[in-house]
């Protein structure tokens, strides 16, 4: 199963990067979201999948899945949520102020 999820993480990265390389702001944000999904899946896969019970201690059970990657992903989800929402509002403001959401038109004119 780990191989399947690895491939899925790869697909998420691929589509995320392809979206990132587009011109429109919305697509770029979609791209960053996809990449963070891929990264979360990546971390989870590295901690081995389905080797026991959920990490909530129960009397008599000794076999649990690895709790550390879960803690890391939880932190990461919250952070990427913060960044994504910030980016969204930034994109909204930028397109409103500049009347465009095309990255090529948002280039400065002093790029000599």
């Amino acid at each position, binding site marked *: 199963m780990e191989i399947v999820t690895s491939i899925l993480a790869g697909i998420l990265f691929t589509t995320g990067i392809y979206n990132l390389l587009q*011109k429109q702001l919305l697509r770029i944000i979609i791209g960053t979201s996809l990449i963070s999904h891929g990264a979360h899946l990546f971390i989870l896969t590295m901690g081995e999948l389905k080797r026991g019970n959920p990490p909530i201690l129960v009397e008599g059970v000794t076999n649990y899945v690895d709790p550390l990657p879960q803690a890391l992903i939880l932190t990461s989800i919250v952070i990427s949520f913060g960044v994504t929402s910030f980016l969204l509002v930034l994109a909204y403001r930028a397109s409103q102020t500049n009347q465009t959401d095309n990255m090529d038109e948002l280039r400065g004119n002093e790029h000599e």
Partner: protein
Amino acid sequence: MLTAVFLPLIFALLIPLLSKWKDKIHTGWFVLIVPFTVFVYLVTKTGKDFAPIRETYQWIPSLNINFDFYLDGLGLLFGLLISGIGTLVVLYSIFYLHKSEQLAHFYVYLLMFMTAMFGVVFSDNVYVLYTFWELTSLSSFLLIGFWNHRKGSRYGALKSMLITVFGGLSLLGGLILLHLVTGTTSIQAMIEQKEVIIQSPYFGWILAFVFLGAFTKSAQFPFHIWLPDAMEAPTPVSAYLHSATMVKAGIFLIARFLPIFVLSEWFMIVTSTVGIVTLCIGSYMAVRQTDLKGILAYSTISQLGMIMAMLGYGTSTAIFAAVFHILNHATFKGSLFMVAGIVDHETGTRDIRKLGGLMTLMPITATLALFGTFSMAGVPLPFLNGFYSKEMFFQASLDLSGTSSITEVLAIVIPILAVVGSIFTFVYSMYLFFGTFRGEYKEQELPKKPHEAPIGMLISPIILITGVVVIGLYAQLVNEPLLAHTYEAITGEISNKTISYWHGFIPAFQLSLLVVGVGTVLAMTRKRWSSIYNVLPGSLSLNRVYDWLVDRTEKYSMKITNTYMTGSLKTYAQLLLSAIFIISAAILFLTNGINLEATDLAPITIAELLIVGMMAFAAIATVFTNSRIAAILILGVVGYGLSILFVLYRAPDLALTQLIVETVTVALFLLAFMHLPELRKRTEPLRTRALNATIAISFGALMTIVAISSFASKWFEPISQYFLETSKSLGGGKNVVNVILVDMRGLDTLFEIAVLALAALGIYGMIKLRGNSKEAK
């Protein structure tokens, strides 16, 4: 000696105060004390029983970098030149520069330069030597660009800076190598280990680097091109820096390391060849010049070449002649520059084509010029010091003998070139004198009505010309107390040299007569053959090479920067991602990191496969959809799919968080999408799309391979067992993930809260604080 070296620099701090305090008095009068004090101090050191003096002051003892001062004969000769001519130049500048000039700047730079030169010639520590060496470049740069409102000054200053600093950095490389090879930073200690240096494998590099430093500083071929452009400096500066002192720093350096280098045959070959070539090119080019200072600049180049060549010969006569000529050249060249300055000052032009017939109007100046130019030409008259050193030069050139095939050729070629160079020297010297002071007086072409210079301006050149005559007549006066010690410092042998009026009708004297004969004929007929300068342009083409190099460097660096600094975010992302991909893939491949044989895998179930398939499909669909609402909903599918995966993989907290976050994110997207323009059809060319796809696919494939490989190669047990065991006993909780978040790794959580708070504040700020941007527009 510390006082002597740093006195000018410390005095320079007072200059701005002095020039403001007594603005009626020319600032130069205060400055005059400084070099004169040092000169007197050094004169008291000369004498028959002179012995080297050593002083050490700590600077950075842990790196063996200290102010080690070592005053031997070589340092003494240069120290006397710097302080003596320094005194005369300051005196001359008092009358040359008007009080309306920025005198405070001028004297600060000049005193800075003086400290730097004293430091160079007295330092025994290579790094201290280098420090002062660069300070001479810097202060010379400031002095050449003194009239910074002129374009020529700025060009000349930049050119000299680039060339001498290039040489200075090479020198630093050579000095570091010397330090590494010998393990000491003291020059005298290095000379004691000369065998070690000679046999080291880095000796070739050391030689090359030190040569580059010395040749650039001393304006040797092909680095001589900065010196004529440095003539934009005020004339006192040209007289001081670019004839008597700084340009001899390279000569000093070669002389200082001569005991080591002379053991190598390549030293002789390179130094004497470069010197002789410089002598010929400099004197050849000098005849062509029309500017008085231009002639003198090329003349300096050629005379420096002659000294360099003599050091390269390495024979005892040659080294003694070189030492003698260093002194002679400083006297007559310094005075000639001052004469040129006087002519410029009194007539308003330095163009020799407009000058002529000034002899009766400026008799004292003309007399001074007569002695100076004839001494420079080496005319065989007993009261001209230039003649003696020139004759010794011929003698040394004739005495050369070769042991290998290259040196045998040199032994034949060098005397011929020496004579040719000397003939041209004679021609330009005569041209300089007769062109300025004899011939037709062109009154209407001169901007000013010429008359004799004020006495203050004449004092310095009179003293120097007196020096020329006195050294010529009574050479023993300087030989025993000074030159003998210098010779001893360079060669390590006690000097038995004497300077006599008459050696007999020896070949060297015959060559002198030949030079005068041929030179006279050529000087008389100069107008007829000067058209050869249209065919052989000499160093003009080297200037073109320099300009071309500077121009190309600027153009190409601009071009290269423009290729990747496009201002487009997409290009930067493409470059960054490609670079990450290439580097990671190369490392993965080179270290045999690829390992696809994963064992101990979890079983695959149908439910999981369905969800994975759904996510993959949704992710790919985001790329192809052209509707923004569809794109947002499909992104939601991926997020919810991920949270179901979290459920299946026994991560209840993650599933919960992911569900909530995904819901809020989709809601946010939907909120924002009302205000975002519609997604448009892709209009990009196929090539761009293919490039993007290639980058994306290769990056995704790399991530998959990395994931599988790192899963397949486990190096040690995870530490999670510790968390599971101590969650209850130490953390007091049963939910291990939550205990990790708030107890074991609580700092992560603290700062993630900070991130959320910042994001919230940022969003609030972006939405609320919008008034300013409109006002700014």
